[in-house]
């Protein structure tokens, strides 16, 4: 019996006794079941297994403390109404917000935080960690920590761009379908049914096999992007202009300008193959957004106040903007978070397969693939970017979970 084991059981049993004494039933149940599990684990796995449990519990306690402090911090700096909402956030949601905040800071200030450049070769391949390199070097001798920080920028920016585009198209189409009804609604619904009946990863692979290679050049990606923006814009213009010819002409002119500007802007930020990836993701996930928006908006459209607004002679765009959207924000925001998770995981998976973000751009998915050989030597380095992917997805999911709980009023 080492000192560690004695201290371990004393602490656990003491804590469960305290919990029982102060009538904290759930805490007692958790602590005592952990004690019982530890007996079994200790017999099977020995001291090292108990050590892992202790480390995990320590990490859990640490993240709980960080989340608690972060929530209090947010409450302190937020306005009065927002603070009231934040007080209802469970610790998991606070933890999620903290992780999102950290990744956002890492991504935005990447060049300032990272000690080395994104593609800068500084030492020999797979050099171990030292004072200069926190996590060692990768297969080409680049600093893994710096690449991780840059990866936060590249991967998340790409996923965010894909989600925003999928969301704009899907939500606009859903709102239009719900307000217009008829053949337009049916057509969009059947189209989305077909797209959704192909598994997303498979559809992505199919599209990437076609638009990869030579086709991933500036011109093609610009035109594809413009086509996508054009379709989204057409929905918007038709919602605003309705039957007025002048409004259509002005709208189309503005749309052409915006599409060209947007295409140029995207091309300066991302390279062509990344734009193709964004478009693929947007095409795959917009039907999901469409379906949800259509369902949510469909529930609002049948309300009496919509009928009243229609009788007042309000236009479609007014109905969407002032009546439907304010009454469906909560599920839509939650959906945005969920879509982001799906998109993020899809892009990470594609990059892991070597078909997503291309080297030398630092990206979490491809970093796992590049360093995977280290696993067979018992090194955990390739797990770090994978863990980063998992952590961010969990974080977003935690926040979404809280929002869904609040918006649905599910107090089961």
């Amino acid at each position, binding site marked *: 019996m080492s000192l560690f084991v004695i201290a371990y059981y004393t602490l656990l049993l003491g804590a469960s006794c305290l919990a029982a004494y102060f009538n904290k039933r759930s805490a007692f149940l958790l602590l005592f079941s952990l004690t019982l599990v530890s007996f079994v684990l200790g017999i099977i796995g020995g001291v090292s297994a108990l050590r892992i449990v202790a480390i995990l519990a320590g990490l859990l306690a640490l993240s709980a403390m960080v989340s608690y402090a972060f929530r209090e911090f947010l409450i302190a700096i937020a306005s009065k109404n927002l603070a009231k909402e934040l007080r209802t956030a469970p610790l998991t949601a606070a933890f999620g917000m903290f992780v999102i905040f950290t990744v956002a800071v890492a991504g935005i200030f990447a060049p300032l935080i990272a000690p080395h450049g994104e593609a800068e070769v500084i030492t020999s391949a797979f050099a171990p960690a030292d004072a200069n390199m926190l996590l060692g070097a990768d297969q080409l001798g680049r600093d893994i920590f710096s690449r991780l920080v840059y990866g936060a920028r590249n991967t998340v920016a790409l996923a965010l761009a894909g989600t925003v585009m999928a969301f704009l198209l899907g939500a606009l189409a859903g709102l239009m379908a719900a307000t217009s009804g008829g053949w337009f609604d049916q057509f969009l619904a059947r189209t989305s049914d077909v797209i959704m009946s192909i*598994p997303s990863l*498979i559809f992505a692979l199919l599209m990437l096999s076609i638009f*990869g290679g030579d086709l991933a050049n500036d011109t093609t990606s610009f035109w594809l992007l413009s086509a996508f923006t054009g379709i989204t814009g057409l929905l918007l213009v038709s919602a605003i202009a309705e039957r007025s010819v002048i409004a259509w002409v002005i709208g189309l002119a503005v749309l052409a300008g915006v599409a060209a500007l947007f295409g140029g802007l995207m091309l300066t930020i991302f390279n062509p193959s990344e734009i193709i990836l964004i478009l693929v993701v947007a095409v795959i996930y917009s039907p999901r957004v469409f379906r949800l928006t259509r369902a949510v908006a469909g529930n609002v459209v049948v309300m009496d106040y919509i009928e009243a607004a229609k009788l007042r002679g309000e236009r479609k765009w007014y109905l969407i903007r002032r009546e439907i959207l304010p009454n469906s924000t909560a599920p839509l925001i939650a959906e945005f978070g969920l879509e982001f998770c799906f998109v993020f995981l899809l892009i990470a998976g594609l990059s892991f397969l070597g078909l997503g973000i291309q080297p030398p751009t630092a990206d979490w998915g491809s970093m796992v693939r590049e360093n995977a050989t280290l*696993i067979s030597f018992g090194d955990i380095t390739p797990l770090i970017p994978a863990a980063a992917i998992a952590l961010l997805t969990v974080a977003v999911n935690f926040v979404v979970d809280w929002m869904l709980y609040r918006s649905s009023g599910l107090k089961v």
Partner: protein
Amino acid sequence: MGDILGLVVKRLGLGLIILLVISVIIFFMVELLPGDIAQAVLGQGATPENLAALRKEMGLDQPALVRYLHWLAGAVTLDFGNSIVTGASVAETIGERFANTLFLAAYAAAIAVPISIVLGVLVALLRNSIFDRVANVATLTSISSPEFFLGYILILYLAVKTGMFPAIASLSNDMSFGDLLYRTFLPALTLVLVVTAHMMRMTRAAIINLLASPYIEMARLKGAPPWKVIVKHALPNAWAPIINVVALNLAYLITGVVLVEVVFVYPGIGQALVDAVSKRDFPVVQACCLIFAATFILLNLAADVGSILTNPRLRHPK
């Protein structure tokens, strides 16, 4: 019974139509390529004679619609043409791999389905307790992790550090069934972890939904013992949502398998698809996509039909 049969036939017909539309998408997407497949295969530096020869060989001189019908007729009889890269028959290359993939998916499902349904029902009965909350966080974490993360963790701890299982799932024909199960345990376990989490959450939601219905309340109020409420009142109505959950997650397994196969170098159809995509071997890509989509639709159909058949209200029409 006539009503149910009609409903089932209607669903099957709908599934067939969707599959047809998808085959159109898969085929004509490749047609979007500027030039044609021959151009894409030979690249920019191809001589006109080479191009013409290849076009003739692949039948590209015929109109697209004719080729589509030809391809579709082939696909129905499991003949997907020849690979561009190796020249071998696509059906032969991926046939055995598809069987391997099905084996892996079935293996994972056989472990995951019973565990997740039992756990899901248990968590639903213990809802809002500390166990429910721990399970919620654990399943959410498992869902959010990419498959390759779980896979590499398992490789690191169960294969490299302790050496309990092989890290690479290499198969050969003369392996005994037990050996096969042992060698493919890690990829199957990875899939189990992801799918169990999904299924548990969905089962929990379905059961909680059910327990909130008035007839359960009524059964409790009339003094039925708890086990009887579950077995006699809740379970008959719970089959439909549970079958739905299982089928949907089996469909999910089919896609999850791609990443897992790559991590464990498992000789399945997912790996074949990824290789074909990076080599731009279109006949193989088309065949794999069609197979995956067909399986996906089939499982979704099974979910629909299963929930129709187990719905007591439909089985005993008024």
